[in-house]
């Protein structure tokens, strides 16, 4: 009986070895575009904000409080609206009000202070002191300083662009960039970085986030466990289960 188990096992192994010649693993593409321009200074663009005559340069904002700079345009039928909505909701979840503010800037020359004001009303952010919606007359220089290059598609009358947030600290240095619609963990890292907190490491956007170990919350200093953590705890857990199973199934002799 034992022999046959062994034979079957090795037959299985040989089959596996044979099959393995048919397969190969893949290389994971890496995206380093968020690494561009870190610790360079943002272009101090002139600003126009609806109903605000005092704010006319970006530095007036970031010197007051570190800044999250978001790029959108009001004619956008694509990513801009879901992007801003997600950003608003995620920022609300962070429960931090004092250590950042948001500037939403349009990169479309069609937009002016009133269209941006309408956009703010649509998102319910027109009376929120943390949010500023504005336009600039020097958008090309601003785009260049953050390596943002929206391309106009005349057929669809739309810009081809990425969703971009740029984090700026109170000295005007770019400390972090996020491309795309990002979750609360990345937003929190962004807020830490603009407050000059040292983050020794972070994950690059990619496919292999499925089994990550932890999501670090810099605000509370705690780790929220992701599925990867449970996999690390698995060997010890399975061992415990094995021991308890053995104890359950073995009969103990009364006299030793």
């Amino acid at each position: 009986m034992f022999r046959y188990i062994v034979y079957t096992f090795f037959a299985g192994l040989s089959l596996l070895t044979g099959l393995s010649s048919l397969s190969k693993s893949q290389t994971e593409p890496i995206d380093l575009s968020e690494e561009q321009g870190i610790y360079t200074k943002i272009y101090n663009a002139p600003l126009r904000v609806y109903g605000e005559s005092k704010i006319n340069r970006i530095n007036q904002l970031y010197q007051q409080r570190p800044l999250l700079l978001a790029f959108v345009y009001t004619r956008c039928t694509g990513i801009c609206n879901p992007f801003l909505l997600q950003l608003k909701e995620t920022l609300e979840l962070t429960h931090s009000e004092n250590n950042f503010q948001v500037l939403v800037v349009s990169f479309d020359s069609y937009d002016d202070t009133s269209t941006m004001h309408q956009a703010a009303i649509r998102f319910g952010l027109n009376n929120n002191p943390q949010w500023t919606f504005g336009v600039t007359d020097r958008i090309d220089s601003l785009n260049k300083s953050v390596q943002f290059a929206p391309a106009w598609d005349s057929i669809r009358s739309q810009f081809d662009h990425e969703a971009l947030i740029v984090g700026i600290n109170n000295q005007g240095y770019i400390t972090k960039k996020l491309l795309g619609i990002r979750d609360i963990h990345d937003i929190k890292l962004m807020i830490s970085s603009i407050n000059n907190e040292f983050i020794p490491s972070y994950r690059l956007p990619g496919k292999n986030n499925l089994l990550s170990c932890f999501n670090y919350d810099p605000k509370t200093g705690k780790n929220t466990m992701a599925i990867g953590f449970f996999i690390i705890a698995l060997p010890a857990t399975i061992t415990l289960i094995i021991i308890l199973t053995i104890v359950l199934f073995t009969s103990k002799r009364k006299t030793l």
Partner: protein
Amino acid sequence: MEHHSMLLLFIILAVFLAIVFVTVFVSSIKVSDENHGLKNTLRKRFWFSLVLTIVLGILTAVTLPKSPYFIFAKETPSKVIHVAALQFSFFMTEKEIDPKQPVGESIVIPLNQVVEFRVTSFDVNHGFAIYGPDMKLITQTQAMPGYVNSLRHKFTVPGEYRVLCLEFCGMGHQGMQTTFKVN
């Protein structure tokens, strides 16, 4: 701790322990048939454990704040250098790295200023290890695919520095290096 201090400490401890064990051994040969062994061993064990715990506690308190994640954390670096490791070379640049066409440039780091290396890998685990002009290892971090590790350092000695790959990465591992200057 400095390299040769660590070696000296180890040798001193090793020699001391060797002497202890030799003494114990010799004592067991020279003794007569009566048992002259240690008495009150439980009390001696207790004191030994207490001393050892205190020593370890002091070592922890002194050394933990010197860990790479904590030193230079409060300072803003004057420069960021992007590093991407690949089998078997390093790309180092002050600008961003395009993974499709990685290009390195020669790097000059300012003296006595905190700089930040942002290190990642295009393929496998590599080690980004900085050796000084005297070829002593100064600092290091891992280059892991899918992650960026930030290493901050303040260089206080001008000269030519070498970077060696310190995490086994394949058959070119021993030749994987690059250099930069500090002045």
